[in-house]
């Protein structure tokens, strides 16, 4: 072989050599990384846009409403014509009430599900349950809000007689349901990352599955589990539609769970659906509230980041 192909060989090489000098190809090669970098810069611009927008409009807000009365005020009465009050504490308390109930609902269930999936379930069971949890995570929050308002609240009212139609309890529980998949799947990831030899070591000593889960796997996966809870908390703080539909629009500076409340997110929605004129203190107040909300979630995400970084297990 070889010889008959010899003349042909030159031609293919020539064809290749001819296209090697292709200027368009070279120009593309140089332009592509620049274009892609600009595209990647969009996400940075988004962050700058978010922070810039919030800061600028919040600063304008503080020219109309004193900063101190905003962060210490116990009354949020933006729509009062005579005596508008912009004390954010009631909105923060409303947010924290819902978040608190959501977390105490979601953590036990989410963690149990994670332990079950990671330590007890067979592969087949896992293959069925995990997609179902994913479906739970994929349901739009507007649907959850409707569910809270039309099903969970009436159900709770039969048990708790004094429960108002808008309250903190029902949206809190439903937000909890919404964040269960997040806690379950992130915690399960953390537990599955614990190497099997550690489990086998304990099982070989005669430990039961429960003892392995609680005394060996949980401590080893603790940082991942904590991070999942913090991230889920952040999600609960930022949740909007469930609390808008089922929580009410009554900012309240108290610790009750049965009365109507308002969260930071629900206030932003209330103003957006109303007709507050551009340039009024009410208009700027949604940015001040949005900024506060942003700081809360940023803090949570930062904590989660620190937890995973600091306690990263070295197996």
């Amino acid at each position, binding site marked *: *072989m*070889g010889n008959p*192909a010899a003349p*042909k*060989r030159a031609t*293919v*090489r020539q*064809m*290749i050599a*001819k*296209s*090697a000098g*292709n200027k368009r190809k070279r120009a593309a090669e140089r332009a592509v990384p620049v274009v892609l970098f600009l595209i990647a810069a969009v996400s940075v611009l988004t962050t700058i846009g978010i922070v810039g927008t919030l800061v600028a409009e919040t600063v304008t807000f503080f020219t109309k409403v004193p900063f101190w009365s905003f962060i210490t005020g116990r009354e949020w009465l933006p729509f009062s014509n005579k005596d508008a009050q912009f004390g954010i504490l009631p909105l923060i308390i409303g947010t924290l009430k819902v978040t608190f109930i959501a977390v105490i609902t979601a953590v036990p269930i989410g963690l149990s599900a994670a332990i079950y999936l990671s330590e007890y379930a067979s592969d087949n069971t896992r293959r069925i349950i995990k997609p179902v949890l994913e479906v739970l995570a994929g349901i739009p929050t507007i649907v959850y809000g409707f569910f809270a308002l039309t099903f969970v609240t009436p159900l709770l009212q039969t048990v708790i007689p004094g429960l108002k139609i808008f309250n903190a309890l029902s949206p809190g529980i439903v937000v909890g349901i919404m964040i269960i998949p997040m806690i379950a799947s992130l915690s399960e990831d953390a537990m599955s990352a614990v190497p099997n030899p550690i489990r086998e070591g304990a099982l070989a000593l005669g430990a039961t599955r429960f003892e392995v889960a609680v005394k060996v796997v949980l401590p080893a996966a603790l940082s991942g589990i904590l991070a999942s809870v913090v991230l889920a908390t952040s999600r609960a703080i930022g949740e909007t539609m469930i609390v808008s539909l089922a929580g009410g629009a009554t900012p309240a500076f108290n610790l009750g769970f049965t009365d109507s409340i308002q969260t930071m997110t629900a206030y932003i929605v209330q103003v957006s659906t109303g007709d507050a004129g551009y340039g009024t203190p009410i208009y700027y107040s949604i940015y001040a509230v949005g900024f506060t909300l942003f700081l809360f979630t940023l803090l949570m995400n930062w904590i989660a980041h620190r937890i995973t970084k600091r306690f990263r297990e070295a197996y």
Partner: protein
Amino acid sequence: MVQVMERTRERAGLKQTAAPAVPDVRPLVYDTKLLNLWYGNHHALKNIDLPIRENEVTAIIGPSGCGKSTYIKTLNRMVELVDDVRTSGEILYRSRNIFDRNYPVEELRTRVGMVFQKPNPFPKSIYDNVAYGPRIHGIRNRQILDEIVEKSLRGAAIWDEVKDRLNTNAYSLSGGQQQRICIARALAIEPDVILMDEPTSALDPISTLKVEELVQELREDYSIVIVTHNMQQAARISDRTAFFLSGEVVEFDETDKMFSNPEHKRTEDYISGRFG
């Protein structure tokens, strides 16, 4: 030791084309001069001097971690895909320094084909795998592509096995067939040199034999550099052999001489299986 090698060679049924009569007259394809290479702080290649000649099979042997793979990947500058690589010295390919700023690396790699340790066909049809190279170099005429594909598959001694299913996915083939598809893919752009980085290490003995036979045939048209951890393989198929150890060339000579009468003690120890 020598007799063992001879016997292996006969058993493999390969014709003894490696003529010791090949003198140093064949033109140089590659000339490596005082090459040094660092991965970060790790000094991986030390003062390498190595000529590679036309239409010969040059084998590179040595224990794992000796730098033989690094060296072959330096010949087409694939080594630069790893971050933090520095080199000094020069490698002349057809008298031109490949580290020259003005030397487009794509041009070098077009002239120098490579076959890898693990068969790595693309998840495409057999046809598209072989036509990949010509296509990226601007050849779109279907007729010419058809010709190139057939010629390359014949050149890689796999045409008869796959000619009826050129449109099936290359992943449906066996490991040995995949590796020969990869060789055909490299042949399709009609390279000058073919670099083979342990091409049979992932293959069964029968496929290995086929690839070895193929290397013998390819020598007629191409210059071949082959890295192998298998000394018998080097003895069977190569004209010259370089023995690498800890990033240095310990010995470089005609294969028959190296395996029968190594100059260095360390070479002898290695080829007689005392380490590595």
